[in-house]
């Protein structure tokens, strides 16, 4: 099966609640006193248009860089591809398995030991117990944290935490890799090793989609740069 991502006229709109309080009270009050207080005719909340009419087709072997200001819709687009944000209108078709590096701390509990956290993280991502067992030794070895494997993670330094999270994330093979900014971890020695591992990991993936503010990094890494502005694609260049 070849991996591919296909977005057709995709829009993401979501209401901002809490701006005018997401409560039953406001809903009822709006109904009863709508004419007195200056509230727009209906009681709907203001909407954010995070993505607006995105048409995009990404196929095998593409390295796509998403570039744009804060709030341009880069991370939203990544979450749409990952499947946690569902389109308000339009269509998305994703073929292939996905590994998301958007939130490395997902599911991490600092009261659990290193090993337990590895297990938790991998189980959340759908690994079977046997697959988890096989991965644990490899992850510990690469992160050089074998001695700390059975200590609770709250005893780790922040560098050690990053090393562990990085090692977990790069141990999950997938057809499509989603990244929010480039990853690096640890001290100088480890960072070199990590860089090599990450490059190797990305080589194995069919598709990479990475969001970043770093234009130079994107230029050197990607085969295609997509620039977003206010939720729309403003440029789409193959390098």
């Amino acid at each position, binding site marked *: 099966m070849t991996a591919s991502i296909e977005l057709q006229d995709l829009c993401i709109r*979501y*209401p901002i*609640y809490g701006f005018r309080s*997401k*409560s*039953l*009270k406001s*809903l009822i009050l709006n109904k009863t006193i709508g004419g007195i207080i200056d509230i727009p005719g209906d009681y709907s909340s203001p909407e954010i248009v995070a993505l607006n009419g995105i048409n995009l087709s990404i196929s095998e072997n593409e390295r796509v860089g998403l570039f744009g200001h804060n709030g341009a819709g880069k991370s939203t687009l990544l*979450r749409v591809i*990952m*499947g*946690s*944000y*569902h389109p308000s209108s339009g269509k998305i078709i994703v073929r292939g398995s*996905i590994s*998301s590096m*958007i*939130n490395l701390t*997902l*599911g991490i*509990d600092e*009261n*659990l030991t290193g090993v337990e956290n590895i297990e*938790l993280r991998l*189980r*959340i*991502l*759908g690994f*079977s117990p046997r697959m988890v067992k096989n991965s644990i030794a490899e992850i510990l070895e690469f992160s050089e944290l074998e001695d700390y494997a059975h200590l609770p993670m709250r005893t780790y330094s922040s560098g050690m935490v990053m090393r562990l999270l990085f090692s977990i994330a790069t141990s999950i093979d997938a057809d499509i890799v989603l990244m929010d900014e480039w990853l690096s971890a640890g001290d100088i020695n480890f960072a070199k090793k990590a860089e090599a591992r990450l490059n190797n990991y990305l080589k194995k993936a069919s598709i990479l989609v990475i969001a970043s503010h770093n234009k130079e990094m994107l230029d050197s890494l990607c085969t295609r740069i997509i620039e977003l502005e206010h939720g729309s694609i403003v440029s789409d260049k193959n390098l």
Partner: protein
Amino acid sequence: MQKYLLIEMMPLFIKNFQYWNYLALNEIKQKYRRSILGTLWISLATTISILGIGPIYSVLFNTRLSDYFLIVSIGLVSWNYISAIIGESCGVFITNSGMIKDTSLPIETYCYVVVWRNVLLLLQNLIILYLIFNIFGFRIFPNIKLVLVIIVSTFFLSNLGILLSLVCTRFRDITQIVDAVMKLLFFMTPILWVVKDTRLEESLLVKLNIFYYVVDLFRNAFINDSISLNHLSIVVSFSLFFAFFKYMALKKYKNRVVYWL
């Protein structure tokens, strides 16, 4: 499109079982980490309240202490089960908002984790009750009717729980309302007492309380190894009623939940 008819639900259920079984166990483990007695604390807390309430209320209700211990123990255990699922369901998406934003699991999964974790705790509580009562010479044993009651009430509570989880995420006030209502229902439901008086049996305040039937099913199965088909069918019909609304609500709103967080 994912269909939620009962038959089509099964694969999702089984496929995710491993997953939510693991998460439920993990949550229990995490909560009682670094405590010596671990999950036994839950049963211990129940036992302590039974021992404290028993001698006083048995006089108040003019019941033999040993009989009253049976009544109140299963009453409290079943009520804890009910109120824990309902209470936790209200906030389940808010608690798991990080996971919901960063994974693509179907949102019902988080509700099943809540239900399953409480089923496991209920089973532990029941086992301990059976042990204690048998040590003190009561001849009560686990029976098939109780298993049936557990299955039916779990079905009922999971449907209601999912429905509440959706509503409470969208309208945050409902959580507070549910909270207040559950506190009130603790006194209005026959947990510390039983419905013996016909005036009570006829009272709408009792008859309209769905939890009365659930607690009553638990109690009769536990103490008398009996089951009221009438009560059972009421709970089943309410379950189906909630299941229908759950199905409609999920179909319409499951993809919106992430934006409500």
